[in-house]
């Protein structure tokens, strides 16, 4: 019997393409109403970032008609895309679906014997102003009026500050789950609150989740999955958790969200004035400092510097940027004998690797280990899935690994990880009530009734056995008794 291969292209189960780092943001935005977008699009920075987040074809269609006065006509789109003129309208809708979702285009209307999509005027104005610099909302950040040139951190210092702060949070998460004793500064209270509220960490001694002792948080399986994702995804998820917390408090989140986008358009190394740039979101700005997005030399100063975590928020389609981070993040070599060589000295990365790799040798710049069954299964017990391990290995693969023919990770390893995942779920156990019949008629009737009530778990006609959900036992029993009475009295 030929074993099914997990890498077989047609039989891929839930192996979707790697989601973009802004998946959390997209999910949030898809649920918002028109009015939310109206407020968002008042800021030119938002229009610019949303434009860049669209898929390329959609993006260019929008840019194509940006400067015209009329709505986009479907015939124009068909000609521009060289589509057949008889293409049905729903298909055209699909082409511009991303723009419709972001309320850049309004749904198709019929006007003057043509079908067209009117464009959102706020967005149009915002994008035009972004391109020409004629906006008035100061959305790209008001620079700070500097008195002296001293005390200005360099770009390297800002990058180091951002990295340290954010990694500190991650290290705190990792160290709570393992017994590793590397010294870790505890993040501040609001950060811990957020980690708890988002489900990334939990207090094991608090079953209800309402009254956690935030000094005693440990990491959850969701937290482990969070650790394995790439940096962009992590950043956006943190921001989205923050935003949802604000929404839960029924505060206005549109202002905060446009602040995120404005930060994404700022320049690394340039100082900005907090009160002038974000007059309505000062509190949120302060909160962001705790995660490493901005640097402020002291609490009450008006001057702040965005770090690379903020400025790289809107950059790229999940491909690495030009920064030196790119090379440091790609350090893994995976061999077909399950050995892993990690050229890194970053404590956090090593701690993450320790979750599912059996580390054998440690040098100052190299860590050697083996993908062990025991370790991988232990990681799976903690909630990490095979897909996550695979995507982590792929995204941190050393450039040398791209030299061998694709696929990047050898199918042996990939399949084995899936198999280890499968092994955990060999048997499925569910509570049940077994009904054994001796009369075919009674059996059939009861089976039909159980199916109708969606109470049936399994049935064996040959042995006249029925397996019923326990919570429906009383109802089915009643039914059976009533049937029995009827059959016995000969109806």
């Amino acid at each position: 019997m030929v074993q099914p291969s997990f890498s077989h292209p047609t039989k891929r189960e839930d192996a979707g393409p790697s989601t973009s780092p802004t998946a959390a943001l997209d999910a949030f935005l898809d649920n918002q109403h028109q009015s939310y977008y109206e407020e968002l699009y008042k800021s030119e920075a938002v229009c610019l970032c949303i434009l860049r987040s669209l898929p390329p074809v959609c993006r260019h269609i929008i840019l194509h008609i940006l400067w015209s006065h009329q709505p986009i006509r479907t015939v124009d789109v068909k000609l521009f895309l060289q589509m057949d003129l008889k293409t049905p309208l729903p298909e055209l809708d699909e082409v511009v679906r991303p723009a419709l979702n972001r309320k850049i285009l309004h749904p198709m209307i019929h006007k003057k014997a043509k079908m067209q999509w009117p464009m959102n005027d706020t967005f149009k104005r915002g994008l035009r102003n972004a391109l020409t610099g004629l906006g008035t909302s100061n959305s790209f950040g008001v620079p700070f009026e500097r008195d002296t040139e001293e005390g200005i951190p360099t770009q390297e210092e800002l990058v180091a500050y951002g990295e340290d702060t954010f990694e500190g949070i991650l290290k705190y998460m990792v160290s709570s789950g393992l017994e590793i004793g590397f010294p870790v500064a505890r993040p501040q209270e609001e950060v811990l609150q957020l980690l708890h509220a988002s489900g990334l960490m939990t207090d094991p001694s608090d079953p209800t989740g309402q009254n956690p002792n935030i000094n005693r948080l440990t990491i959850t399986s969701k937290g482990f999955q969070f650790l394995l994702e790439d940096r962009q995804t992590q950043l956006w998820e943190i921001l989205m958790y923050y935003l949802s917390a604000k929404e839960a408090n029924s505060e206005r989140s549109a202002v905060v969200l446009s602040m995120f986008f404005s930060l994404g358009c700022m320049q690394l190394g340039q100082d900005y004035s907090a009160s002038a740039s974000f007059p309505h979101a000062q509190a949120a700005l302060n909160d962001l400092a705790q995660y490493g997005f901005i640097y402020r030399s002291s609490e009450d100063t008006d001057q702040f510097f965005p770090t690379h975590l903020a400025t790289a928020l809107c950059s790229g389609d999940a491909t690495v940027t030009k920064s030196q981070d790119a090379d440091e993040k790609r350090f893994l070599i995976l061999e077909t004998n399950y050995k892993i060589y990690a050229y890194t000295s970053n404590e956090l990365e090593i701690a993450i690797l320790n979750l599912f790799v059996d580390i054998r040798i440690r040098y100052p710049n190299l860590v050697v280990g083996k993908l062990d069954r025991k370790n991988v299964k232990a990681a799976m017990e903690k909630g990490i899935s095979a897909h996550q391990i695979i995507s982590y290995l792929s995204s941190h693969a050393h450039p040398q690994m791209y030299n061998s023919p694709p696929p990047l990770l050898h199918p042996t390893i990939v399949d084995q990880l899936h198999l280890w995942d499968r092994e955990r779920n060999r048997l499925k156990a569910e509570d049940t009530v077994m009904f054994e019949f001796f009369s075919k008629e009674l059996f059939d009737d009861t089976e039909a009734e159980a199916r109708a009530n969606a109470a049936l778990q399994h049935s064996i006609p040959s042995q006249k056995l029925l397996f019923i959900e326990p919570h429906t036992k009383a109802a089915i029993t009643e039914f059976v008794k009533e049937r029995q009475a009827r059959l016995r009295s000969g109806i």
Partner: protein
Amino acid sequence: MAPPTAAVSDVVKSYPKTTAPSILLVILDIHPLSWSLLASPPPLPPYPGHPTVDRVEASPLTLNEFATILMVFLNAHLASRWGNEVVVYGATAGRARLIYPLPPSAEAGPSKPKPNSYRPFQLLDTRIEQGLRELAAEEAARLEGDSVNSVNEPTSIVSALTKALCFINRIVPAVSPAAALADPTASTDPAAPGVTGPDKPETRILVINATPGASISATEQKEANEGQKSQGGQMRGGYVGLMNCVFAAQKAKVPIDVLSLPPPTIDASPPIFLQQAAHLTEGIYWQWNGRGGLLQYLHAIYLPPPSLRQHPFAVPPQDAVGFRAVCFCHHKTLDVGFVCSVCLSIFCEPRPVCLMCKTRFPIKSIPTLKKLATYIEPIPVPDTIPPPVASKGAGAKAQHAADGDKRDKDRSRREGNGYHGDRGEPIEVD
């Protein structure tokens, strides 16, 4: 929400999900005499069948206005993807200069960031403005200085092209990452973007030509034939230089797009060598029709990156390329010429000794060759758009009948100015 029917889009699924970052190099022709022509254009011929278009007057175009339009277009290019870059060269009479980005050694006054403009846009725009002013000031200084006649020199597009190609070669190294690993001593520019796999940037060159005239001949006779004024029309560096650039671009897979500003009313015979350049490198050649709307045209035609052209985005029809060459001895444009079989250089009449490679050919063959040449008919230049269908309705095409030179055969050709295929409606103007 449209229900997911079976018809829903294998087409949409086939669109690329991401594109590589794109580097756009612009070569802007700022020859002062050409721009003076553009600033006072002759009136446009009537445009039958489209009263809205017909009403539009010929719009004068000054360098200021065009620079503004160009800046917005370049901003749109930078906006369309994170990681896109822009490089601008200015080409004027006899010289070409890099305007943006400046090398780090040059002192660029650090301007304060403005809160309403995205910093990269601001840097680009201020620098372009500054650079153009500097170039213009230099030109003025030259005029007042001794070399008044220098302004008669043709625009040095070839010079700018070579600089652009060298820039590309530096930024996108030809060596593959594997080879780089094998030879770690090969120096790589630390500022160069990553070149692994999907990150490798794609480059293209956009030449904005303001100078009318096709010929690069140096002879007065040819200019008179073309009916040109005595000044513009030639390209410095010559035919050979331009062709070398084109072949280098072809090899490096860098498309050369050409935007020819002089409308057909000023320039009856558009620059054929730029057309050939665009054709050989799979770029887009397009001539402005003089009716305004340049911003929209730029966005529509030149904004999509090369990976998105042809599929799915439409481009203007690129068929009307005049495939003529220039003889190496007199720099005359030829339809029929004689080619050395050793070095493939082209001459207008058969020679016993090739000028370039010095190969000797038998003298006896020369008369026969001359006789055979008379039998060859030059290939007519195809129409851009087929002639309009006589019936009303879908078929009306946009035509400018431009009468070409009477001397050469088959010079009357029809130029199309829009690309809307069947519909033929150009984009409406502001």
